[in-house]
């Protein structure tokens, strides 16, 4: 539990899909398809576009960071006071494509870019975990 403040916390999910990248890209970027597996949204594949994912538990505030059709898509993911970044990468394979999702939060070098909630959050989690580790 120590030194979390300087660590990157990330979640990576990766799967081989028997579909071409173009088809996966549609599922990742067309609002009606996105809604079918993720959440209701007003997504548009344009850098700096701000959008929301709405679930029954609340909304996620997002901003598009990168759009590289059929290859790479990244957006911020702001939920519950934490702003993190979700990046999708598509790599063609002989049988279709490998789809990789990386969701990264708490990266100290993002503090400049994502001030406010994120920076406070990173310091807070780091400080609390350090504290809890010390008194355990």
């Amino acid at each position, binding site marked *: 539990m120590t030194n979390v403040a300087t660590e990157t916390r*990330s979640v990576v999910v990766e799967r081989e899909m028997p579909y071409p990248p173009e088809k996966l890209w549609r*599922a990742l970027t067309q609002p009606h398809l996105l809604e*079918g597996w993720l959440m209701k949204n007003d997504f548009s594949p344009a850098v700096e576009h701000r959008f929301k994912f709405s679930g029954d538990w609340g909304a996620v505030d997002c901003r598009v960071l990168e759009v590289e059709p059929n290859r790479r898509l990244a957006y911020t993911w702001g939920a519950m006071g*934490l702003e993190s970044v979700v990046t999708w990468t598509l790599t063609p394979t002989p049988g279709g494509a490998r789809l990789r*999702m990386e969701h990264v939060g708490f990266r100290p070098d993002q503090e400049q870019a994502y001030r406010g909630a994120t920076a406070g959050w990173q310091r807070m989690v780091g400080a609390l975990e350090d504290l*809890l580790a010390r008194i355990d």
Partner: protein
Amino acid sequence: MSNGLQDELFRSLGDPTRRAIFERLCREGEQTVGALTADAGVSQPAVSKHLGVLKRAGLVSERRQGRQTHYSAQRSALAPLLDWTRRMTEFWEGRFDDLEDLLKRMDQ
């Protein structure tokens, strides 16, 4: 992935004064409002209000003794917050399953 209490938890700790109060309770154990006010840099009513928010989030519990109320930190309430990686992994694994189902339907 989330619920009301968890939102409350994130919101409560988003405020630096509240965070400082909570950290102090973790570090030094049970305290009265008066003792907390002495170091908080804000008024006693403000400290009481912060304690109320922390209490609603389950981060702080209170114990009355005579005319004094003693506050202590409930560290176990932090568990969902420290468990971000596990929760998000579960969330995205589930979404990938739904995505695969959708892709199958797109074929038809």
